[in-house]
């Protein structure tokens, strides 16, 4: 979501091509094999050497365990064939597909059951080094990694990795080494190949220089033991550095600050977990003994736009948002999520003036007339901050209606209205237990425990949800559609995304700066910024007169 082009940023065409090959992989039904979020988003992190939590090699270690488990299975199929079938054969990488695969194979391969055991959520792998658990959900992520490794450098590593993966089989009791050591060695070999690949394809000089400039700038503006980053700093940095090609675009500067904030947050988190090192138990060589619960620490909680959830089939069949008026105005806010309200004014400036600057860049690229460019530079067509936040408020209201409509679908799916418990009638309070619809909705919203609600209020809510559902005359909002079990599941999943959206919009609208200009209902701040941006555009692109 930035203004870089891939080549312009120095990323090797090989890496981008390798990565896109996996990202764009589709089944015959035209649906992507791997979900953009969270699977491809996770793969991106692993590819750039940032996925794996405390140890960036953890995903490789998990993958080697999974391959070890597959190699153990013995039903007459060659290990290479089985790997291809498992990692490449499914048109969609879903937990259910992997679960069915293991269930089906292990029911026919009795002797393997001691070494690989099926559990409800995944498989337990038993080897001399102990036990290792991999969830079915995790297998979708590891499949994307497997496919990427074999795709690297235009598929040139296929034979190397295939031979390496073939070695991942139980060694037997007579062997001096251990299965654990075997898996660790394989992980380290893959890690070494991946490091070389990154070195060749992800040059770091450009980003190092960018970091140093930003960090020096921030340090200069601070004293004492703390550094403070605020909206004004983003603007000042842009004003003082926009003569440089890489900082000409305000939104690029904003993006760089967001990455810096994430880096500072992440560094603190990394430090608390521990330092990265090789997997193994050779302490003299600074190897670490990996925990068998590594999957739990490999995915930092991070933000992904809720729209990525709503875009997944079959949720995408439900028209929660109309593109132009309901989705597009909050697309960027949802993309940045919590980071948008960490720097709220800097963000709203991208919404108002980033679009103007994008228009100027396009005009220049298309050699439009100087008059037209000069007209844009005046920023007269920029949406003011009240308009922008008014549209957020309208969409927030729309989301509240969508939540009610979703509640109606979930309520209907449990078959009846909410029942009250007799013992609570006296104080007019009812307890919603797990199987009650509103409680289910609240669970989908992220609440873990049942809630107490006033009975009348609850009835009103249920009635309002029915009305809200009826008020929508768009795809997905018919009783017939909402009665289908797959579609109910789609509404249930969408409920979580809608709650995230509500939270982001609410938090943004309640930032001090947004409250200030919305309560005052004045455009002083916007008008001041308009003049400032217009002046800076004039400096960058030429006279506006």
């Amino acid at each position, binding site marked *: 979501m930035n203004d870089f082009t891939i080549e312009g940023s120095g990323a090797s065409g090989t890496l981008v091509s390798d*990565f896109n090959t996996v990202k764009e992989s589709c*089944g*015959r039904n035209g649906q992507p094999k791997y979900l953009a979020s969270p699977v491809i988003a996770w793969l991106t992190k692993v590819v750039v050497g940032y996925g794996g939590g405390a140890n960036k090699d953890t995903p490789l270690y998990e993958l080697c365990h999974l391959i070890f488990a597959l190699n153990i299975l013995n039903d007459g199929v060659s290990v290479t064939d089985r790997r291809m079938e498992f990692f490449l054969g499914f048109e969609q990488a879903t937990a259910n597909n992997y679960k069915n695969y293991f269930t089906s194979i292990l029911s026919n391969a009795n002797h393997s059951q001691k070494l690989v055991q099926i559990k409800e959520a995944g498989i337990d792998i038993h080897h001399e080094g102990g036990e290792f658990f991999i969830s079915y959900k995790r297998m979708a992520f590891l499949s994307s990694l497997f496919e990427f490794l074999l795709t690297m450098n235009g598929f040139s590593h296929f034979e190397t990795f295939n031979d390496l993966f073939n070695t991942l089989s139980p060694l037997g009791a007579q062997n001096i080494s251990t299965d654990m050591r075997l898996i660790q060695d394989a992980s380290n070999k893959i890690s070494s190949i991946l490091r070389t690949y990154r070195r060749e394809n992800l040059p770091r000089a450009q*980003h190092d220089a960018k970091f140093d400039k930003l960090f020096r700038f921030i340090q200069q503006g601070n004293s004492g033991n703390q550094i403070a980053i605020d909206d004004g700093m983003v603007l000042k940095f842009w004003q003082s550095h926009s003569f440089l090609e890489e900082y000409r675009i305000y939104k690029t500067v904003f993006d760089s600050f967001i990455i810096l904030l994430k880096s*500072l947050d992440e560094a603190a988190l990394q430090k608390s977990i521990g330092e990265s090192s090789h997997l193994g138990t050779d302490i003299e060589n600074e190897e670490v003994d990996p925990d068998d619960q590594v999957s739990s620490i490999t995915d930092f909680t991070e933000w992904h736009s809720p729209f990525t959830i709503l875009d997944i089939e079959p949720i995408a069949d439900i028209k929660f948002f109309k593109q132009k008026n309901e989705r597009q105005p909050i697309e960027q806010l949802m993309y940045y999520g919590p980071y948008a309200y960490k720097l709220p004014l800097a963000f709203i400036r991208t919404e108002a003036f980033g679009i103007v600057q994008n228009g100027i860049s396009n005009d220049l690229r298309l050699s439009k007339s100087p008059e037209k460019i000069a007209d844009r530079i005046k920023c007269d067509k920029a949406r003011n901050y009240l308009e922008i936040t008014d549209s957020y408020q309208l969409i927030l209201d729309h989301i509240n209606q969508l939540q009610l409509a979703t509640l109606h679908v979930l309520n209907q799916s449990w078959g009846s209205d909410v029942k009250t418990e007799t013992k609570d009638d006296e104080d007019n309070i009812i307890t919603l237990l797990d199987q009650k619809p509103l409680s289910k909705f609240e669970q989908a919203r992220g609440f873990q425990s049942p809630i107490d609600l006033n009975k009348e209020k609850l009835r009103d809510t249920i009635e309002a949800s029915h009305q809200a559902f009826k008020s929508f005359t768009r795809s997905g909002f018919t009783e017939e559609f909402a009665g289908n079990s797959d579609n109910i599941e789609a509404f249930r999943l969408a409920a979580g995304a809608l709650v995230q959206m509500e939270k982001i919009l609410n938090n943004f609208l309640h930032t001090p700066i947004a409250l200030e200009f919305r309560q005052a209902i004045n455009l002083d701040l916007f008008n001041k910024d308009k003049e400032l941006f217009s002046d800076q555009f004039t400096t960058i692109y030429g006279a506006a007169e």
Partner: protein
Amino acid sequence: MINYEIPKKDDIDSIRDTFNSLSWEEILGSSNDTKQKSGSLSLSEIYNYIKTASIPDENIEKTIRSNINLWKFYKRAISETAIIRMPEAMAASSQELPFTRHGKDWTLTIELSRAEPQQVYIIFKLLKNINPAPSSIFFFKNDQTPPRWELPEMHEGVIQIISDRNSDLVKLLMDPKTEAYLR
């Protein structure tokens, strides 16, 4: 305003590393926006093509032939998953008809048609129960990949094809430098 403790000198290197990784992550993530499609086939797509496509797709075959690494994968995937494998020299060693070749669990016979002397019967007989039946025959000759052929339905372990005696299919089957795989 967001406040952070000033990082120590050693920590700055770690933050710089993270900044570098996140910058690349941003760029790879944004490749969606640039509409740059790789135009390349993924290994999953090729594997599923081998496994399920009943009709050869010339575009896919062409893409595979254009990349030696992809071609190696394609050949490996076919050879690993084939039901019948006919390595070089096993295909045929003479131009005389009829001839029969035996492999593990299969027999190949090519014989002249009595009714049409220019036609031959190509008969694959599978000696063990195979389910699902092979649906395609793939050939490899040196580093070339001739097109694959669709196979007719199998009846009681027998796949029978009527072909022109001078057809490419017959030529390839009778060429000792050709490897053939049924799957």
